[in-house]
């Protein structure tokens, strides 16, 4: 199987408007609260603890980071900013590992491939929900 290129340095903070999903082809399973994910492109196995497993299972390719964090903050009765920080750290790591990617980036790639002139805006632009020095995500495979 062809190896994916190693991800570049990941963003430190993700745009809360970003929509992420599990990279197609990554196999995963939930077992006793943990998620075990296997990336055949790198033959790497990842384990997510029960909190990470919940975040993982929220990566449906439709929900924004802000929506996921809002739901989790409510469910765990925790401050939004604290949850955002923890989830951000987890997702940056997963994106760097190549098992999670920006759903919109797939659209960008598809649009570029089809010669479209009006691609989806670059990932990482600041949103009104959480201002900050966002950097774009590494290019996803």
């Amino acid at each position, binding site marked *: 199987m062809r190896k994916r290129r190693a991800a570049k340095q990941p963003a430190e903070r993700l745009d809360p408007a970003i929509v992420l999903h599990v990279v197609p082809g990554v196999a995963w399973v*939930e*077992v*006793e609260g*943990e998620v*075990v994910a296997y990336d055949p492109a790198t033959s790497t196995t990842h*384990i997510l603890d029960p909190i990470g497993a919940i975040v993982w299972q929220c990566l449906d390719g439709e929900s924004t980071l802000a929506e996921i964090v809002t739901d989790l903050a409510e469910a765990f009765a925790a401050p939004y900013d604290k949850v955002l920080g923890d989830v951000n750290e987890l997702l940056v790591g997963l994106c760097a590992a190549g098992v999670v990617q920006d759903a919109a980036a797939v659209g960008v790639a598809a649009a570029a491939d089809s010669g479209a002139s009006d691609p989806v805006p670059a990932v990482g632009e600041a949103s009104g929900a959480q201002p900050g020095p966002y950097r774009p995500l590494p290019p996803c495979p």
Partner: protein
Amino acid sequence: MSIAPLQASAETSAATPAEATQAWSTPTYQALGLRFRVETDVAELQPYLLRTFSGLEVVGPAGAGVPAGDGIPASRRTVCFGLHRAMDGAPVVLTRDGAEIEGSGHRSYAVAMLLWHFNNTVVAATTPTHVVLHAAAAERDGVGVVLPAPMESGKTTTVAGLMRAGWRYLTDEASAIDPATLQVTPFPKALAVDQGSWEVLADLDPGEPRPVPTQWQVPPMWPAGADRHRPVVPRLIVFPRYAAGQATHARQVRAGEAVRLLVPSTFAFDRSPQRNLDTLAGLVRQCRCMELTIGELGEAVAVIEGLAARVTAEAAAGAVQVGRRG
């Protein structure tokens, strides 16, 4: 290479060796997804081959079976390995379905390669339908234990110790898990005992002939009345690790960690990652998972027996939900 006509063999090690110049065949055996037999014109190897494969299910007499060929379903084929004296005077040539796969080797090398190719072929024939773990396995009183580990970790030695203690031997090499039932299908090949374990397993010495001088092929033995080929539901996964001089001890492994440890122990994992991961998770859900550091074989067997007793007691108390899948 020209092969003389087959000579039918008896199905026991009591078979009289054929003349060295005549081709001779084992019975046809079933080993997981592989149906096979072995031909040889080397008389001294015949009792060794019968002994080595004596634990496997005999499904046909010598020379029986459908040969490989176009249009024949793989499950119906009989693979024929051969150990032959080459016409050019080379000691022994290893063939598969008539084609040379290892040539001009010393006899011990050819036999070792036969066993290597046999194991590989069994695994390759089984991975399409089963999740095959590089793991030993045994069963007693309905409690199956699977021992996954890399080479040289103590799989064979540990399962030999269990067998000696009265457990039903299932395999020392490849535990085939049915994804639908999560049961292990026995693959009771001879136990491949390396020199490092000869002293501790001295009573299992199979004796002569010993064409591979550095490894015993120990025929399995079973408790009286045991059904050798009945599949087993595993209840224990024990990851063995031999550590000379250390105290034998076990520690529990979290379910997610157990799945992670099983991934590299799964043959051809990348061919069906999602099926394999789902099956491993299902297996882990129905098992207690432990890491076992082995300093001494008798202690390791005692630890496993203690764990099995605990699993049995928990099942009796309803603490373990049999066959539970998430």
